[in-house]
């Protein structure tokens, strides 16, 4: 099967700055893929190269098998990009903006789909409103709609929920999940790691232009076999032997980082010996955020 996205040894230099450094990855059709990394890691640069907004210094990229430079017309038809910046054309209404975007992709009578996209993104009531008069959240919805007007098989969302309220975020994810179920490949960059954890089947983590982790979300979560235990003690005094395990000391509680579940037995034994009673105890798996922090620290 032809990969939805194929990136081969791509590097991008801006003068002396290397924004991407020999990045290779492949995304299969129908995947929900997360691209994570701190600011300046190269996520947007990689998306720009796929979209033809930037040209790679070395290496090549393909969208649904089409080279983004040599076969740019087919590659761009296959791709819908929701840009990170809240941009809009102040001369036109929502419906006009969508009709233009659809026409740019060569689609003539696309009204039914435009209406459907507007309906799903709750834009129907604002169809005749000038773009200038929309709130930030509404403008964001239009950006999503503009990326979808030509029914691209691959959808790239560059931080689509930055500064967006809960209601829109949920509506947006419902719609994107539906598109993904219908077979669209979705590539997402976000700073909200709980979103990535809940949505993405596979994740690549970037740091300083390099991929530092690339695996399924499940494997990434398993990669760190350790767990956390949160304790409230009476008296509120941790035995000295357990001090090296403390990850966090809160008011009236401790959070200990354990290598594995077996280490829990040692913690309980130490507490018994010290005659310290457990008032509350919670054992927790690390979430993607913690794993992200660990990977970024190590890389």
């Amino acid at each position, binding site marked *: 099967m032809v990969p939805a996205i194929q990136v081969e040894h791509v590097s991008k230099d801006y003068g002396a700055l290397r924004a991407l450094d020999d990045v290779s990855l492949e995304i299969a059709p129908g995947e929900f893929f997360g691209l994570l990394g701190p600011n300046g890691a190269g996520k947007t640069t990689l998306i720009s190269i796929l979209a033809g907004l930037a040209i790679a210094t070395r290496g090549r990229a393909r969208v649904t098998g089409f080279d983004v430079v040599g076969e740019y017309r087919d590659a*761009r038809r296959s791709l819908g990009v929701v840009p990170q910046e809240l941009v809009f054309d102040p001369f036109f209404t929502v419906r006009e903006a969508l009709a*233009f975007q659809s026409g740019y992709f060569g689609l003539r009578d696309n009204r039914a789909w435009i209406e459907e996209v507007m309906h799903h993104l709750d834009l129907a009531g604002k169809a005749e409103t000038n773009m200038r008069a929309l709130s930030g959240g509404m403008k964001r919805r239009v950006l999503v709609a503009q990326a979808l007007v030509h029914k691209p098989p691959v959808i790239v969302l560059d931080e689509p929920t930055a500064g967006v309220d809960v209601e829109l975020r949920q509506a947006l994810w419902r719609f994107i999940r539906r598109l993904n179920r219908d077979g669209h490949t979705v590539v997402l960059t976000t700073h909200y790691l709980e979103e990535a954890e809940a949505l993405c089947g596979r994740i690549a983590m970037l740091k300083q232009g390099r991929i530092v982790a690339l695996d399924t979300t499940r494997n990434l979560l398993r990669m760190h076999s350790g767990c956390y235990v949160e304790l409230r003690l009476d008296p509120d005094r941790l035995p000295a032997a357990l001090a090296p395990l403390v990850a966090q000391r809160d008011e009236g509680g401790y959070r200990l980082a354990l290598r594995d579940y077996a280490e829990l037995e040692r913690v309980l034994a130490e507490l018994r010996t010290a005659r310290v009673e457990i008032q509350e105890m919670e054992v927790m798996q690390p979430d993607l955020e913690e794993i992200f922090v660990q990977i970024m620290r190590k890389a």
Partner: protein
Amino acid sequence: MTGFYTLFRKEWLRFWKVSVQTVLAPVLTALLFLLVFAYSLRGRVEVFPGVDYGAFLVPGLAMMSALQNAFANSSSSLMQSKMTGNIVFVLLPPFSHREFFLAYLLAAIGRGLVVGMGVLAATVWFVAIPLEYPLWVIAFAVAGSGVMGALGIIAGLYSSKVDELAAFQNFIILPLTFLSGVFYSIHSLPPFWQRLSLFNPILYMVDGFRYGFFGHADVSPWLSLAIVGASFFALSFFTLWLIRIGYKLRH
């Protein structure tokens, strides 16, 4: 074709929706020029034999307005899109560089012609002018607006800030259009300035355009057409190349 046509239509509507600013205002400016110059110089200046100065002025003003507005259309559209970031909407679709160029160029020519015709329509009530060779009029209006539209694309691509484009407009376009024989015949200038004027490509646009009305020109209309046509093709190829390499559009 649909993609190209949509981009052209978008560029057309972009100025048409604010036509008070983009069409009516330049027509009014041209009328004010006519009022001030034609009435204050009436009877004192005779540029072409038997032609009233007001009548002489009208085609020049129409052409000057057409040229300035053709330039303004493509340059401001591109520069504003780049500044606000909405240029991304035309960079993501699969336009070829030719489609991209032609859409911006034709919209610029369109605005030039609309404004030029607006000036003629508004002044026809005050000044009677002949129309000897309509085909020359059309040829120079289209070719002249084409040159300025292409130049506008170059300026729009080059400028990333309002003041950069303003410098282009104030220090290049405005002096060249004002000193192109709109208000005078170059034969009324001292020899040095006459010779210098011949290096101004806009002179040939205005002079050839005027020839279509009066059948009288400073330079042969064929030579003017050759110069304007050559400038158009040279600028067009250069602009196409800039778009193809993504100059200041794609990193």
